């Protein structure tokens, strides 16, 4: 069969690869001129290239790396050490290294009690992350009519749950619905340590550290990388190098990839998909269409509402995907110097830099967004990709990639096009407090607002995770209860993007899981045809 895949983001490319491996010949249609979706490396200014959006991988699932042989295709992954540097307002830095023991040593400078607890916390997060990793790899079971296979899977999950032991089993049940601020507060007293870990529960979401359920986001992220500070995996050439290699692997397996092919409509007749119509007016027939776009875009933009039940449409409308993340990319004339990091600084900031020195700071940053304003003292997640790959900029110069929260998509009383510079200024003013003089190094500045994320990259509501990772929009409820198995109410139409389980950002699990279900479903179709 020749399924059509809408979009060439990382999940779509991974789905294309596995479908091709299963004997299909998928055609991937990408609106943009390049593959990669939100994982791309592009020119920032003459001589400068950088990760336009995503700047660190989740990391990608090991199975994907292995099956798609990314390293053989020339991808060099970099896991920097230190992974994360968290800065404080009074000019100190807390450094998270790959080695938990060394990190604990660094924590000791802030609090001996916290240092003593750190390794146990790491161990618990590893245990819970490993348990949940099974759930992340699994297709969420059907709620109405679980099949024998699903019952078996659930039984196995139940047994794994019990084998966690009472202590950790209850931890899992408690941590999930908790506010991540409470969770870290139960373990640690150092504000910057709490904040650096809590940030993993709020990154990319429309929640603050005091929002209940952010514990789940932390746990979900721990399935890909259980280290408390999170993953900082990048690749030489930036994320674009990885998605290019994913595309190569898909092509080699038999997929066709067309860029500049903008799908305008998914065509449906009698409740079954018949193909897609492109923006240029041409049509492509297909008995299976896989959408890598987010659920809202797929069902509300690319489809004719008459093809869907009003009840289903109402649910998709209610699916929350209003984002709060913005991106600022900077071309710098030299490496900025951060307070708290003396000498050998370059070696210390090859991973991510966390700016958000305390829980209250992060929560206040979130507060602004509740009333439709952007944070004036925002939470920043920063990388300097040129430290891992100097070829991204002219010699001695650097690229800085900054995720900023909170910039609510629904800005109240203002437009993002008018506020673009104000956003850029806020980010630089904030950076200046931690890296004095950085403003004078800026040679070029690119500001990507939530509206840009929607218009240019097709992320509805500017939500970088294709929808809020809230308890009611996860697992069997992602994107909505009854439709969490990558299938849709339209026969032959499937979903494979981050708006499906597990929705963990740049791990590729949604694409991989989707391909497994779609293959199964197509096989059934073929045998019944």
């Amino acid at each position, binding site marked *: 069969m020749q399924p059509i895949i809408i979009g060439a983001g990382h999940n779509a490319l991974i789905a294309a690869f596995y479908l091709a491996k299963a004997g299909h010949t998928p055609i991937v249609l990408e609106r943009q001129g390049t593959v990669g979706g939100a994982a791309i490396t592009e020119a920032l200014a003459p001589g400068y290239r950088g990760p336009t959006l995503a700047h660190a991988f989740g990391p990608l699932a090991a199975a994907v790396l292995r099956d798609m042989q990314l390293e053989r295709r020339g991808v060099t992954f970099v896991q920097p050490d230190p992974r994360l540097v968290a800065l404080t307002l009074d000019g100190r830095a807390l450094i998270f290294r790959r080695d938990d023991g060394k990190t604990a040593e660094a924590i000791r400078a802030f609090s001996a009690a916290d240092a003593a607890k750190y390794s146990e916390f790491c161990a618990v997060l590893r245990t819970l992350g490993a348990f949940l990793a099974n759930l992340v790899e699994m297709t969420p079971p059907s709620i109405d009519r679980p099949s024998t296979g699903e019952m078996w899977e659930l039984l196995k999950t139940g047994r794994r749950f019990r084998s966690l032991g009472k202590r950790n089993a209850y931890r899992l049940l408690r941590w999930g619905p*908790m506010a991540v601020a409470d969770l870290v507060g139960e373990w640690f007293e150092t504000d910057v340590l709490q904040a650096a870990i809590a940030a993993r529960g709020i990154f990319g979401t429309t929640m603050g550290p005091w929002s209940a359920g952010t514990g789940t986001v932390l746990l979900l992220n721990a399935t890909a990388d259980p280290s408390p500070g999170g993953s900082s995996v990048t690749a030489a050439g930036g994320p674009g190098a990885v998605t290019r290699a994913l595309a190569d692997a898909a092509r080699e397996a038999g997929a066709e990839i067309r860029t500049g092919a903008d799908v305008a409509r998914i065509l449906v007749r009698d409740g079954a998909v018949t193909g897609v119509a492109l923006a240029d007016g041409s049509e492509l027939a297909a008995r299976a269409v896989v959408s890598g776009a987010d659920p809202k875009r797929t069902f509300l933009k690319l489809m004719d509402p008459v093809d869907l039940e009003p009840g289903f449409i109402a649910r998709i409308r209610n699916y929350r995907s209003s984002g709060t993340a913005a991106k600022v990319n900077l071309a710098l004339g030299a490496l900025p110097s951060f307070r708290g990091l003396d000498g050998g600084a370059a070696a210390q900031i090859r991973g991510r830099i966390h700016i958000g020195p305390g829980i209250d700071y992060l929560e206040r940053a979130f507060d602004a967004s*509740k009333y439709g304003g952007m944070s004036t003292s925002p939470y920043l997640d920063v990388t300097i990709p040129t430290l891992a790959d100097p070829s991204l900029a002219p010699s001695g110069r650097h690229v800085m990639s900054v995720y900023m929260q909170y910039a609510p998509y629904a800005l109240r009383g203002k437009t993002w096009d008018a506020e673009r510079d104000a956003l850029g200024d806020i980010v630089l003013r904030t950076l200046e407090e931690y890296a004095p003089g950085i403003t004078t190094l800026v040679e070029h500045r690119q500001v990507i607002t939530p509206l840009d994320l929607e218009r240019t990259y097709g992320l509805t509501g500017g939500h970088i995770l294709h929808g809020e990772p809230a308890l009611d929009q996860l697992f069997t409820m992602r994107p909505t209860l009854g439709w969490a198995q990558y299938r849709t109410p339209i026969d032959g139409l499937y979903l494979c993007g981050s708006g499906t389980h597990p929705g963990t950002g740049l791990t590729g699990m949604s694409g991989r899981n989707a391909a497994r279900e779609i293959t199964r479903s197509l096989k059934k179709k073929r045998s019944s045809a």
Partner: protein
Amino acid sequence: MANYDVIVIGGGHNGLVHAAYLARAGRKVLVLERRHVLGGAAVTEEIHPGFKYSVCSYVVSLLRPEIIRELDLPRHGLEILPLDGTFTPMPDGNYLWRVNDHAKTRREIARHSKVDAEAYEEYGKAMVEMGRFVKPILNMTPPDPTSLDPRGLMDLLFLGRRFQSLSGEDKYNQVQLMTMSAVDFLDQWFETDVLKATMSASGIIGTFLGVRSPGTAYVLLHHYMGEIDGAFRSWGLSRGGTGAISEAIAGAAREAGVEIRTQTAVSKILVKDGAAAGVVLENGDYFTADVVSSSVDPRRTFIQMVGAEHLPDDFAGDVRRYKFRGSSGKVNMALDALPDFTCLRGPGTHLRGAISISPSIDYMERAYDDAKYGRFSRHPYIDIVIPSLTDPSVAPPGKHVMSCFIQYAPYHLKDGTWDEQREAFGDTVVNTLSEYAPNLRNIILHRQVVTPLDLEREWGLTEGNIFQGELTLEQLFFLRPAPGWSQYKTPIRNLYMCGSATHPGGGIMGAPGRNAALRVLKESRTRTGDRRLLSPVS
């Protein structure tokens, strides 16, 4: 030989319900109350001559109908008067006034939005369905999901089956109710800001959460659960004040043979060989018993009365982690006349229900923001009732009692102490109300400000939490009050928990006291055999 079969610590409504059920089953029960009056937080006191304040808890919402029936509370003087409607004045001179009469409410909502008036009907129907699903869970002893105990598995299976039997749409609603924020949930149904704000307010009462915090949607259900029982409205007042409920339960308990002592403060629970053996009073006296049931919160029970030395380390840690974080206060006033609201003048029936200062979602959310950073809300959410309009017995003729529940009033203040802030807090409430009812300032005869610190000192509610611990998902059902100890039992043999800190939690519901009593009876039956003739309890 033990003096008593069971000693119950605390004479609040749960402690009394618990005692009554045990006595009816033939047990010799002693209830010990620290204060001079019974009822705990469900108490009515004449603080100002001639005016009876329901000092803390001020409305009845969910008192279990089976308890009313089984303890025959009406015969013991319980009379619940319906409290009809919620009136929400707005700063722009408009208002929202919902009453139990559906047609009337529909017309009123249509004044704000025709679409919402339509949706309100649908919403009500959906919520009644959901309430039907949740109700049996209230009377259930939560299963332990980590054990292989077949009973627990059966209970989990029962819950799963029940959930499966719901329609697709009801399942969807149910999942959303359990996890979403009140505002996100209501956003799906309604567009009128004030309607959503005032409805979502019920989701934050007694919690340290905002209306946009996930987990607050569930409480929306409570308003639709009372009605299903048909016995009484979702909100009501007890004739003679909230304390009359406690009096009625105490009456039933005494009739069944319970011995009740007030002004008798327990300081320690006697533990011998890992089992509770009795209690020591503050004056040094002691009583022995086969079973001790504590209706006070886990921190008081375990850290203060039992002592950490008797507890497994993990459990002691869990008890210390259990979150209280009180967030509310109370201002009770004696009034010379009725407040006159600018948006709807005169002493109309809108004053007879609840009056809610919750004019917008942003207003509610900003009130929460203040509390997050350690100060009381500059513009608080206020839930008001004027019980003297429904029950004239609580005030002299022509005068009134006004009860104001205030949120947020965080127990932990960033600056100063609650004793220093008391009057400023009271002034904030009066000032806020005066924006809507300017005559209020001139009619106040007496004002009582109850801070979260007062709730702790006077009523023993740790950190001023009115539910004996936050009603957040991680502290509910099989996690309440501690993981693995949700079945009213404790690591100390013969020591049970029977207060709001156990499933299903706070409010004048009585379910924890009753559930725990059934548990004690079941356990002691297996322990001692049919020592006594048991009278049926359900």
